[in-house]
């Protein structure tokens, strides 16, 4: 079974790589298979780990214990709320009554906003601002002093670049140009890391082909 799986994986890897030469039916097959299998797998996984154990099983188990659907429904009445909201969400596919799906969406937006506003301030804004408030002179450590000044200039310059209420001339223009330099360095770092990531993924697939499929490396 493992051997068969390895051969299928090797074939699909080569099928996807074949796109680098040119678009072809083998590549299309592998691409469509990936999308289909992923979607199918996700549906089954969510059904098996969530919908059935958390929504259906409580009703069934209570019914098996009490031999009464009435007791089962009354004991787990609260589960009807998420179940109804979930079903209503699916009504988006029917244009005439799709407006009903806004109810669960508004519920989700409300929860999301409530959670996110406090969390963003508490976990993102304050700690990041606090981390920027560093001493510009650290006695005995030239490197830390240099780093802190660099951080300060970078933050102020970048903020100046994104300040659009005044024309970028004079002092503000100079500051925003410094900001551009820092932004370019950040883009360069991101690009470098992206190259690294893509090469790593290629290494992973080539290592699989050589080690697990062809057994030419260990």
């Amino acid at each position, binding site marked *: 079974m493992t051997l068969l799986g390895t051969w299928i994986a090797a074939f699909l890897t080569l099928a996807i790589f074949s796109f680098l030469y040119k678009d072809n039916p083998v590549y299309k097959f592998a691409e469509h298979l990936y999308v289909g299998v992923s979607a199918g797998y996700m549906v089954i996984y*969510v059904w098996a780990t969530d919908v059935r154990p958390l929504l259906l099983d409580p009703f069934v188990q209570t019914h098996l214990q009490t031999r009464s659907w009435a007791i089962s429904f009354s004991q787990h009445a609260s589960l009807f709320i998420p179940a109804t909201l979930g079903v209503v969400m699916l009504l988006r596919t029917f244009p005439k009554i799709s407006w009903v799906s806004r109810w669960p969406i508004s519920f989700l937006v409300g929860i999301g906003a409530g959670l996110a506003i406090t969390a963003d301030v508490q976990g*993102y804004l304050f700690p990041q601002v606090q981390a920027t408030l560093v001493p510009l002179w650290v006695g005995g450590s030239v490197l830390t002093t240099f780093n802190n000044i660099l951080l300060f200039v970078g933050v102020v310059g970048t903020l100046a670049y994104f300040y659009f209420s005044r024309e970028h001339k004079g002092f503000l223009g100079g500051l925003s140009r410094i900001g551009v330099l820092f932004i370019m360095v950040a883009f360069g770092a991101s690009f470098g*890391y992206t190259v690294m990531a893509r090469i790593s993924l290629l290494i992973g697939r080539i290592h699989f082909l050589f080690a697990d499929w062809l057994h030419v490396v260990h």
Partner: protein
Amino acid sequence: MSWLAKLEKIDRRWIFLGVALVVSAPLLLGLHSKVDITPPVKNTYEAIDRLPPGSVIMVSIDYDASTMPENQPMLLAVLRHAFQKNLKIILMGHWPLGLPVGTLGLDQVAREMHKTYGTDYVNLGFRPGTAAVMVNLGTEIRNVFPSDYRRVLLDSIPMMRGVHNYNDIRLLVGIEAGDTYEFWIIYVQARFGLKMAMGTTAVMAPTAYKYLQSGQLVGLIGGLKGAAEYESLIAHPGIGLAGMPAQSAGHLLIILFIILGNIGYFLSRRKKA
């Protein structure tokens, strides 16, 4: 046709072939290279190393097969280290397609290190609702996961006795391929004060550094290079270390292409002028 004109019209498939050859050769030749340990990876290692035996750590699988070559080596390295230190591991995840990949890794390392399910490690599985799940785990794990991924009640699992919320967990290690790690930081680190370290794909590493600088993360393992460093620290070479010569060769070729591209650009601009 001048070499410059030829360079401008080069079929990009030659470039793909060049990259494939340059990456394949070091793997085929079995080349090895040493890696320097960077502070973010060393801090992650030390955060795990300092924990007393029996401490519970949580590992979150927030990636799937598409970034497995980067994330899986770091997961294996962290699990090996944690089991070596006799720590208890709770595995869970927010990516339904990723959890089977994480489960594979956990089962592999547990087998290697003779660890027992339910005593040394537990796999909680997946629940949808990322932020809501994270916040609820802070109150009571059983509210979100009444049972593990095999549908065994948590109360009947020996390792979970006395483990109820983040107060009972000493460290979270997130293995990440998307923005889920930011959810962990803003919803859990800030609110509950749980110590956390992240293993991220290289693409995400630059944005994760700001959390390291602010002290919200104790450590960061960035990409395959980070995984190689961790493998080096635990003295257990894996695909991370094996891939480093290929990684360096690939980078050198890309740098060469960038230099050639720039030379071509400036020469053609001068010619037009």
